[in-house]
């Protein structure tokens, strides 16, 4: 049997998804018996020209991690789409924006200034911001430029499947790879590497079910009881609104779920589902009580939409897809990042 051709790419990501693949450990050897890795910049030496030289649909499966932040990301997303039969949005960034997607709250200009001007580790008195082109005596230097909003992979090109998680758990990656190897992939559009229901289904903590709270705290502010539901202790835990798949990893490390496996099946907006879930547990009767509880929720968008902002309905209200792909204001020079 001809070996499968597998590619792994990282767009705007932290590298955690690539590490998660390495965590397959000895299973990588099993994978190598049935698949050739034809492109994996984080692990091996490949050039973009290698991919460009491939015939269309040459790659069987591409695991694409990272969000579409720059024109380079968008270019490679289109390139890999052309060269790939089954394109997989791998990990939270590619699937729903993840932490880099939170920069969409303030936008890329704000992020660029933070990195180039106001970060304590920089000395940039002239307030220079990096641009796409810079003329030097030796020639024109180019750098990728940022689009107005970070986009998910499926907002830029069609994808066949998504694997959630920040990063996806290696056992779930293996489950997905097994489905690829055995040619047992589900209907196009499905999630791979998940379990049924939500994180609460895998969480061993006790839920009394009637305890409501009149203030929320963050993990560093209390020492939580190890046996009791975090929400009932006033810690915002995204477990009720998060797809099962991780095995409740953070919960077992005494930390509330942060929501990285994305919304449960059929839920369109994870943050809205989480919003409903925490308001349901508000104690109180009056508007004054509501103001009091709300005042204890620090950074509501970052808390409710920590991983899912980029793919959320909320985000669509802020900016349409067409505008999101344009070059950000501070690097604009007439080009389009789409």
């Amino acid at each position, binding site marked *: 049997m001809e070996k499968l051709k597998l590619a792994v790419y990282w767009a705007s990501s932290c590298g955690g998804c690539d590490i998660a693949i390495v965590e397959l450990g000895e299973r990588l050897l099993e994978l190598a018996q049935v698949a050739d890795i034809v492109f994996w910049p984080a692990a091996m030496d490949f050039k973009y020209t290698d991919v460009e030289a491939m015939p269309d649909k040459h790659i069987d499966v591409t695991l694409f991690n990272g969000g579409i932040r720059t024109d380079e990301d968008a270019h490679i997303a289109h390139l890999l789409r052309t060269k790939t039969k089954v394109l997989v949005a791998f990990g939270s960034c590619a699937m729903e924006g993840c932490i880099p997607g939170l920069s969409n*709250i*303030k*936008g890329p*200009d*704000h992020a660029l*200034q933070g990195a180039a001007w106001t970060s304590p580790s920089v000395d940039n008195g002239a307030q220079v911001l990096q641009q796409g082109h810079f003329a030097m005596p030796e020639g024109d230097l180019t750098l990728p430029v940022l689009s107005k909003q970070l986009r998910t992979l499926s907002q830029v090109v069609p994808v066949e499947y998504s694997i959630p998680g920040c990063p996806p758990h290696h056992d779930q990656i293996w489950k997905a790879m097994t489905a690829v190897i055995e040619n047992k992939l589900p209907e196009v559009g499905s999630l791979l590497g998940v379990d*049924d*229901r*939500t*994180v*609460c*289904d895998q969480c061993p903590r006790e*839920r*009394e*079910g*009637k305890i409501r709270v009149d203030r929320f705290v963050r993990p560093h502010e209390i020492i939580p009881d190890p046996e009791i*539901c975090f*929400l009932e202790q006033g810690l915002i835990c995204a*477990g*009720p*609104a998060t797809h*099962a798949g991780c095995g409740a990893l953070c919960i077992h490390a005494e930390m509330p779920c942060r929501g990285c496996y994305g919304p*449960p*099946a*059929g*839920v*369109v*907006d994870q*943050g*809205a*589902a*989480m*919003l*409903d*879930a*925490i*308001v*349901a*547990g*508000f104690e*109180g*009767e*009056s*508007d004054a009580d*509501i103001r009091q*509880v*709300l005042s204890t*929720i620090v*950074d*509501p*968008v970052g808390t*409710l939409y920590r991983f899912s902002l980029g793919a*959320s*309905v*909320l*985000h*669509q*209200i*802020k900016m349409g897809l067409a505008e999101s792909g344009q070059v950000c*204001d501070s690097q604009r020079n007439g080009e389009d990042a789409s």
Partner: protein
Amino acid sequence: MIRSGEFDGNFVQDVMAEPGGEHLLDCWSCGTCAATCLVRRFDPAFNPRLILRKAGLGLREAVLSSREIWQCSACDACYPRCPKEIHISEVMQAIRTIAIREGYEPPGPFASVDEVICSGCAVCTRSCPYEALARGPVMVNGDERVIAQVDKNLCMHCGVCVAACPSGAMSLEEFNDQEILSRMGSGGWLEQPGYLQGAADAPRILAFVCQWSIRSDAEWAALEALESERLHLVNLPCSGRVDPAMILLALSQGADGVLVAGCHEGECHYKRGTYLGRGKVALLDTVLNQMSIHPGRVRFVELGALTRSALPALLDQMANEIVTASTAAAPAMFSAADGA
């Protein structure tokens, strides 16, 4: 006419022996409770005075088999007005307790749980104003799992749990998600582009209205007469049924604003439903502000005895504020004053 055979002298004692039933015979039958009761707007046959009267006369079978004893939602609008200070909802509860004991069943509808989807997260049990939901072990497809279960004797079908459930496992006939979504989009209203998209002359507002906050058919008809390109009404069993995801979906389509009308603080037909509705809109407003989305696009208004007729004016006010905010200067891009 009451036949002697229908009379059961023990019934009065039975009711008065239940917690809350002690004051049954205090009732003067003045009818003040019936005059204030909200249930009568939807079911004119419902009359708390008559139920107390029949119970006081010992008409066991007539009372226990009646549909009416299950309709009181314990909103307690009648309680402060009763000149004899009878806590009527507690008397109703005492009668229900006897009915349940003797095998009578409430007519429904009830909230229901999809046992395959439910994770047992306990969000619904916290949300329920009636403690009608509890977690317990259930065999589902051969596995014993701890999931939510509805106590039909307590469920008042307010729909609060359906909105609260983060995984879509709860439903309530007539007010399930698909039904509400289809009413939101009826007549293609949401597909028309809005004012903020530069395509309408004035803001288009979708209003979720609690069916109890409008107290008469005439008031509801007057409101419906205002429906147009600019206003689309969707009634809910309670403002606590409003789902933030639906508000966001409306705003992402043709609605410039979403208004949620609920009952005045302390007048909610479902105890804490209006509180949850207000909480959701308040938190959603914070979220929209943090995203620097056009201000004033969501609003909760409470309708009480003095403000009920003010809804049209409140809609106008909301539309005006959306217009005013859209002509204001865009937020400064390079000054990060709020620092968040």
